[in-house]
C-alpha cells in the first residue's frame, strides 16, 4: 500500500466516505450498497467463504464492517454451536419427563423447581482458551461470566464451583497455569462474595497446552420471578449498565474461543478480558434491587460477543426490532471504532429493556450502587436491528439471522483409527502389586487423589453463611432459607457436584459421559439430596477432525441416554471445541454437573467417618474393572481397555436408598467410590475427621480395594440402625456388605495392611504443597 492511499483526505476519502476526527472512515449501509465488491476481512474474523456468501444473501448486499463484526462473532463456533447443534438436540428429544424443569436449554441458564415456591438456576461454562493465554484473568472472567448468566435469569447467585484440568502436575507450564488460574478464581470469587463449594482438580499430560477451566454458578429465585432475555414492547428503552466498554477481549469470541492454538498464541494476549469483581458485586446487588422494584422487562448479560450478542438476542426474542445509537455506549477508550465496540468483551456489563416510565426509578437504583447506566436505544417493531454511528446507519439486519439462524454443520465423524487397538490393550496384562499398603499410599499421594486443600483453602467457602457442605465433601450443599433476605423460611437445601473423567471417555466416549453423569449423580445422593437436573460442559478437540467429532457425537448420545434413564433432564450447558495443540486433541472430557434437593437440609449426610463405633457398609458390587483406572494411570502410566460399566439402574437404586436412608436419619456419614476405588474411599473417610476403621474383605483384595466399578458407596451406620438400613437396601436390591467398624487411629484392612491415619494424612496433604509451594 502506498503512503498516499493510507492518508485520507480531510473530509472524506476518494469514494466519498465520511471520516471521523481521527481520519478514519465509517462503513455505512449506504456505502456498502454502493461498493458491493469491496473486499471484507471475513477470513481474518474466522468466517468461511460460504458463510460470508450467506450473509450477503441475507442482506442483499455486502455487509458493512459493523455487520460483519456481528455475524462473525454470532456465527462463531462459540456462540452458534454450529458443529454441535445437530447432536445437542438429543438432550431435548430424549429428555425425561420432569415436572421440575421450569426453563430448559436455550436461555442464559436452565431453571429448576426445587419446591416451596423456590427455583434454582445453574450452569457450567468453559473459559479454557483464555485461561491458557492469561491464567489469572482468563479464570477470573470465567467466574464473572457464568455469574452474570445466573443473574440474568432473575436470580441471586449463591455459590460457585470450578472443575479444573491441567497438564502433568510436575510439568513446567502447569506451574505457570495452575497458580494463576487458582489465584484468578480466588480473587474474583472471593471479592464477589460467593462461596466456592466444590469442584475438581485433575492432572493429565493431555491438558498441557489446553487446560480446562469450567466454572459453575448456582442461583436462587422465587419461581414466579424468572427473567428472560427478551426485548418486547416497541418504545421500551434499551439500557446498557455496568462497566464501560474498552478494547479488552475484542475478537475473543471468534479469534480466541474458536481457533486452535498454534505457536503464535502468545500474540493473542490482548484478546483476554480483564475482570473487575468489585463492579460485578455492585451489579449483583443493583440487579436484585432492580428486579425487586419490577423495573426490568427483559435482561441479558454481555458475555462472548458483547453488544453484538446482547442486542441481536434480545431483539430476536422480543418484538423483533431495535434501534441503537452506538455513539451512546460509554467507552473506556474513546478511540474505539463501532466494529470494536460491537465485538468488545469488556466484563461486568448488562443490558436491560425498561419501560420508559420506569427509567427514572431504574437510574436511581443504579446510581445508589454507583453503577453507570445509559439508554442506548429503543425497542421497535420493524423486525430490523438498526444501529447508527455519527448519524449514519451502519447496521441494518434482521436480528434473528445473526442470533438464531447461524450455519448448522453436519460434520463428518468416524471412529478413531486406533480405537479398537486402544480398547484391546486391556489392563489385564499389567503386573498386580504385591504390597497393597504401598499401592494405597502411592495413589493417595498422587496429584489426582491427593488433598486439594492447597487450591481450596484459597477460596472463601463461608461467605453468606449458608454453606452446609463444601469441599472436600462429595457435594457442595447450601441451605435455601436464609439465602435471600426476608424470604419465607423452608427446610430445603440444594446440593451440587461436578464430575468428569477424560480417561474413561477416551476409552469409550459413550460410557465415559454416562460415568461422569453417574458420579455426579451419586455424589449428590450420598449427601442425602435427590438428584434433579443436569448441566454439562463438553470439552473436546477440533470438530473439523472426524475422529474428535465421533468422540463428541458418542459422548452426547451417551449423556442424553443416561439422563433419560436416570430421569434427570439437561437444563443447559456449554460446548468447548478446539481444545488441541496442533493435531493432538485433549482426551474427550465431558464434565457433568448435577443439582439435587434435600427436603430437610439438617439431615444432610457428612462425608466420611464422623465418630467411633459405627458400622462401615459397602453398597454395590465390585467387579474387576481397571481400564482407565487411577491405579493403571499412576502405577503403570497405562491407558487402555474399557472403562467400568455404567450401571445406571444400579445407580438409580443406590441413590434411592441413600436419599431415603438420609431422610430417615439412618446415615452418620457416607462417601462415594470413584477414582482409586474402595481403598481411597476408606482412606479419605478416615481423613475426614481423623477417625480410623477396621474392615475385612472377601475375595481378591487387590480387586476389592482398587477396582473402580460404578454404582458403589461407603456409608457409616449406627449399629442399632443397621437392620433397618439393610432391609431398605434389600427392598431396592442394592447389595449391602458390612465391612467392619469405625474407630482407632489407623485404617486396618484385616490380613492386608494397617496404616496410621496420621501417615495417610501426611501422604495425602504433602503432594500439592510440594509441587506448588
Amino acid at each position, binding site marked *: 500500500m502506498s503512503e498516499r492511499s493510507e492518508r485520507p483526505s480531510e473530509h472524506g476519502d476518494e469514494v466519498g466516505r465520511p471520516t471521523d476526527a481521527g481520519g478514519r472512515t465509517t462503513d455505512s449501509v449506504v456505502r456498502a450498497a454502493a461498493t458491493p465488491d469491496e473486499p471484507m476481512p471475513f477470513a481474518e474474523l474466522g468466517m468461511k467463504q460460504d458463510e460470508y456468501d450467506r450473509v450477503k444473501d441475507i442482506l442483499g448486499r455486502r455487509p458493512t464492517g459493523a455487520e460483519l463484526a456481528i455475524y462473525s462473532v454470532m456465527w462463531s463456533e462459540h456462540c452458534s454451536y454450529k458443529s454441535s447443534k445437530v447432536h445437542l438436540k438429543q438432550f431435548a428429544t430424549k429428555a425425561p419427563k420432569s415436572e421440575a424443569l421450569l426453563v430448559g436449554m436455550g436461555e442464559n441458564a436452565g431453571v429448576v423447581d426445587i419446591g416451596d415456591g423456590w427455583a434454582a438456576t445453574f450452569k457450567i461454562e468453559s473459559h479454557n482458551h483464555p485461561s491458557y493465554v492469561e491464567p489469572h484473568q482468563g479464570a477470573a472472567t470465567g467466574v464473572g461470566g457464568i455469574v452474570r448468566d445466573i443473574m440474568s435469569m432473575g436470580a441471586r447467585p449463591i455459590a460457585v464451583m470450578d472443575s479444573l484440568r491441567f497438564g502433568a502436575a510436575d510439568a513446567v507450564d502447569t506451574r505457570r497455569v495452575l497458580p494463576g488460574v487458582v489465584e484468578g478464581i480466588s480473587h474474583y470469587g*472471593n471479592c464477589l462474595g460467593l462461596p466456592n463449594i466444590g469442584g475438581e482438580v485433575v492432572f493429565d499430560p493431555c491438558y498441557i497446552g489446553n487446560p480446562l477451566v469450567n466454572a459453575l454458578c448456582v442461583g436462587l429465585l422465587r419461581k414466579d420471578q424468572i427473567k428472560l432475555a427478551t426485548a418486547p414492547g416497541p418504545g421500551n428503552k434499551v439500557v446498557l449498565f455496568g462497566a464501560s466498554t474498552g478494547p479488552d477481549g475484542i475478537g475473543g469470541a471468534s479469534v480466541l474461543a474458536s481457533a486452535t492454538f498454534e505457536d503464535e498464541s502468545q500474540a493473542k494476549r490482548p484478546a483476554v478480558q480483564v475482570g473487575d469483581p468489585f463492579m460485578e458485586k455492585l451489579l449483583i446487588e443493583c440487579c436484585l434491587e432492580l428486579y425487586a422494584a419490577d423495573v426490568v422487562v427483559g435482561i441479558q448479560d454481555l458475555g462472548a460477543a458483547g453488544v453484538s450478542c446482547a442486542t441481536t438476542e434480545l431483539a430476536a426474542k422480543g418484538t423483533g426490532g431495535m434501534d441503537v445509537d452506538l455513539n451512546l455506549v460509554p467507552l473506556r477508550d474513546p478511540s474505539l471504532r463501532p466494529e470494536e465496540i460491537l465485538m468488545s468483551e469488556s466484563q461486568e456489563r448488562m443490558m436491560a429493556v425498561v419501560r420508559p416510565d420506569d427509567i427514572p426509578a431504574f437510574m436511581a437504583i443504579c446510581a445508589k*450502587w*454507583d453503577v453507570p447506566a445509559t439508554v442506548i436505544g429503543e425497542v421497535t417493531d420493524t423486525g430490523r436491528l438498526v444501529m447508527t454511528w455519527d448519524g449514519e446507519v451502519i447496521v441494518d439486519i434482521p436480528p434473528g439471522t445473526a442470533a438464531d439462524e447461524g450455519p448448522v454443520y453436519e460434520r463428518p465423524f468416524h471412529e478413531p483409527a486406533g480405537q479398537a487397538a486402544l480398547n484391546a490393550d486391556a489392563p489385564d496384562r499389567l503386573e498386580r502389586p504385591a504390597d497393597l499398603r504401598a499401592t494405597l499410599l502411592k495413589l493417595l499421594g498422587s496429584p489426582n487423589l491427593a488433598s486439594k486443600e492447597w487450591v481450596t483453602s*484459597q477460596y*472463601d467457602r463461608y461467605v*453468606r*453463611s449458608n454453606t452446609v457442605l463444601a469441599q472436600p465433601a462429595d457435594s457442595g450443599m447450601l*441451605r435455601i432459607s436464609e439465602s435471600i433476605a426476608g424470604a419465607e423460611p423452608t427446610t430445603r437445601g440444594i446440593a451440587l457436584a461436578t464430575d468428569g473423567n477424560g480417561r474413561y471417555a477416551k476409552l469409550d466416549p459413550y460410557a465415559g459421559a454416562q460415568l461422569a453423569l453417574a458420579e455426579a449423580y451419586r455424589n449428590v445422593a450420598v449427601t442425602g439430596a435427590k438428584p434433579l437436573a443436569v448441566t454439562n460442559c463438553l470439552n473436546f478437540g477440533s470438530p473439523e477432525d472426524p475422529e474428535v467429532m465421533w468422540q463428541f457425537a458418542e459422548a452426547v448420545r451417551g449423556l442424553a441416554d443416561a439422563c433419560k434413564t436416570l430421569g434427570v433432564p439437561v437444563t443447559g450447558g456449554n460446548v468447548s471445541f478446539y481444545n488441541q495443540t496442533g493435531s493432538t486433541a485433549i482426551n474427550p472430557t465431558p464434565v457433568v454437573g448435577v443439582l439435587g434437593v434435600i427436603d430437610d437440609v439438617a439431615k444432610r449426610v457428612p462425608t466420611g467417618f464422623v465418630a467411633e463405633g459405627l458400622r462401615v457398609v459397602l453398597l454395590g458390587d465390585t467387579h474387576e474393572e481397571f481400564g482407565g483406572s487411577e491405579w493403571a494411570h499412576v502405577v503403570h502410566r497405562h491407558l487402555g481397555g474399557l472403562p467400568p460399566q455404567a450401571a445406571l439402574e444400579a445407580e438409580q437404586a443406590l441413590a434411592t436408598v441413600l436419599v431415603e436412608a438420609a431422610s430417615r436419619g439412618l446415615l452418620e456419614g457416607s462417601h462415594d467410590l470413584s477414582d482409586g476405588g474402595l481403598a481411597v474411599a476408606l482412606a479419605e473417610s478416615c481423613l475426614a475427621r481423623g477417625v480410623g476403621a477396621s474392615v475385612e474383605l472377601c475375595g481378591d483384595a487387590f480387586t476389592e480395594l482398587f477396582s473402580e466399578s460404578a454404582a458403589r458407596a461407603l456409608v457409616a451406620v449406627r449399629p442399632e440402625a443397621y437392620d433397618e438400613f439393610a432391609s431398605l437396601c434389600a427392598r431396592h436390591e442394592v447389595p449391602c456388605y458390612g465391612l467392619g467398624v469405625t474407630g482407632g487411629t489407623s485404617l486396618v484392612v484385616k490380613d492386608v495392611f494397617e496404616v496410621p491415619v496420621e501417615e495417610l494424612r501426611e501422604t495425602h496433604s504433602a503432594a500439592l504443597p510440594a509441587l506448588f509451594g
Partner: protein
Amino acid sequence: MSAARVGVVTFPGTLDDQDAARAVRLVGAQAVPLWHADRDLNGVDAVFLPGGFSYGDYLRCGAISRFAPLMEEIVPAAKAGLPVIGTCNGFQILCEAHLLPGALTRNGSLHYVCRDQKLRVEQTATAWTNAFEAGQEIVLPVKHGEGRYVADADTLAALEAGGHVVVRYLGGNPNGSLNDIAGIRNEAGNVVGLMPHPEHAVEELVGAPSTDGLGFFTSILKNLVNA
C-alpha cells in the same frame, strides 16, 4: 428493655453484612443496616464493620472506606465510647481510621487463606469479648489475603504491656502476623478489631464447625445491659 440495636455497616463491596446481621439477630438483638453514604448512625447501641472488599480494595484495604461519610460519624462516636467491632475488612478499616494502631499487610504466604483457625481469647475486658473466659481456646474461620498484623516495636510492646491483644492465633499462624496477633482493642476496650470471622461460627448447620463466634455477640448484649 427493648432489644439492643446493633448497626451493621454496608460499604460498596462489603460481603459479610448479611452474615453479621443474622448473628446479631440470633442472640436476640436487632440488626440495623447502616449505609456507607449516610451521615446517620440511626441511634444504634453498637456498630459492626463486616468483612469484604470495600470499594474493591484496589488501593490499600480500607484506605478508601475510612473517608466514607458514615465513618465521619463512627470515628467520633467510637472515641466517645460507642462499642465498635471490625472483622477482617472491618479491622483493616479501623486501622486505616486510626481507631486502632498498626496495619494489616499481605499474608506471608502471598496467598489468600480460608481455614478454621484455633485462637486464644487473651483479653475479656472489652465490649466484645466479656462473655469469654480469659485464655479460652476457640475456633473461628479466617479468610483473607491481607491479614498480617504489623506495627512498630514500640506499639507492639505497648499493646502487649497494656493487655490490648484480644485474640491470638494458636496452632499455626495463618498469615505471619507479628506476635501471632489475630485481634486487638483500643485503650478503652470499646473498639475491637480482628481478622477471624465470629459471624461465620454461630450455627451448627452452616459455616465453620464451631459456634464459638456467638460469644462476641452475647458479649455486646451483656455489655449493653450492664451499661
